[in-house]
């Protein structure tokens, strides 16, 4: 058994392997993981909207030992990740880190938000720092406006950033 504590280091090896197979393959893998994650989050978003997101990511915060703030208002759901355990472990690793490790988060979350009619704005800030800022909007225009003040905007399968 690869311990769940070491999943991110296994994930890191998977990313390196799939990247060698091509960018399209990586997108397909993100979509597959996204489909897997639908089992955990899709019903919560469909039934409860932002409150469902809060419920899901509150569990993630606790189970994955994240240092983050999360909440929502009328317009948006928001997570401010202060210390991401996933990237921290991928970096604290005797194997080489995949440089785009952070891309996987928007890679699975983006397609779910597209599917549920929300608009994701994912600022990774810096791929080398275990911090990020995620916002999910009901209104697309507000999401596009929010994209103006990001530092490193992430894309996902179906929505590529230049």
């Amino acid at each position: 058994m690869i311990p769940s504590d070491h999943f991110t280091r296994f994930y890191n090896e998977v990313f390196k392997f799939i990247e060698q197979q091509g960018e399209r393959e990586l997108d397909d893998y993100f979509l597959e993981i996204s489909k897997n994650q639908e089992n955990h989050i899709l019903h919560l978003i469909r039934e409860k909207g932002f409150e469902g997101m809060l419920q899901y990511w509150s569990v993630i915060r606790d189970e994955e030992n994240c240092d983050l703030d999360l909440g929502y208002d009328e317009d948006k759901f928001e997570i401010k990740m202060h210390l991401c355990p996933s990237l921290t472990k991928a970096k604290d690793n005797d194997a080489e880190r995949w440089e785009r490790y952070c891309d996987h988060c928007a890679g699975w979350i983006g397609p779910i938000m597209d599917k549920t009619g929300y608009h994701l704005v994912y600022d990774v800030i810096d791929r080398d720092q275990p911090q990020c800022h995620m916002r999910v909007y009901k209104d697309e225009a507000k999401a596009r406006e929010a994209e103006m003040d990001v530092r490193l905007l992430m894309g996902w399968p179906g929505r590529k950033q230049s």
Partner: protein
Amino acid sequence: MSDEETPMRYQEDGNVHMDFHGAVNTTINFIVARYGIEALHEIFRRVGTDVYQDLRRHLNAGDSHELVKHWRHFFTREGADYDISVGDDEIVLTVRRCAAWFHVQKIHGTVSAQFCDQTSIVNTALAEGTPFRIDTIIDGPGACRQVIRRRS
């Protein structure tokens, strides 16, 4: 500081996110369907040789105790039903109920036929070129024995 108190290279504590095993299962199915079992095994081999370099360093130095410590720490954290017997000739980890396997069964309904390859291939890679070999015997669904022996 005694050996038991010396932290391992990867010494995670805090809460456990068991759903990661579901993502492993999904990944296994994806890799096998797209690229075949050999590709999956290559990824697991890299986990064994590259991620677990420190465990391999210990094994290379003739020390199997660090791997036993690793087993104890993580199987306990995951709530597995297991025991470890340390004999003169072999060390046997007996997993009667693998928490990862049963968690995947609970959340996905079915477990990949290659799910336990993560154990057998990583074990083989850990021991490769060291004075030890590690055999993995699957005893049934979510049950196995992992045996460390010195190579003759």
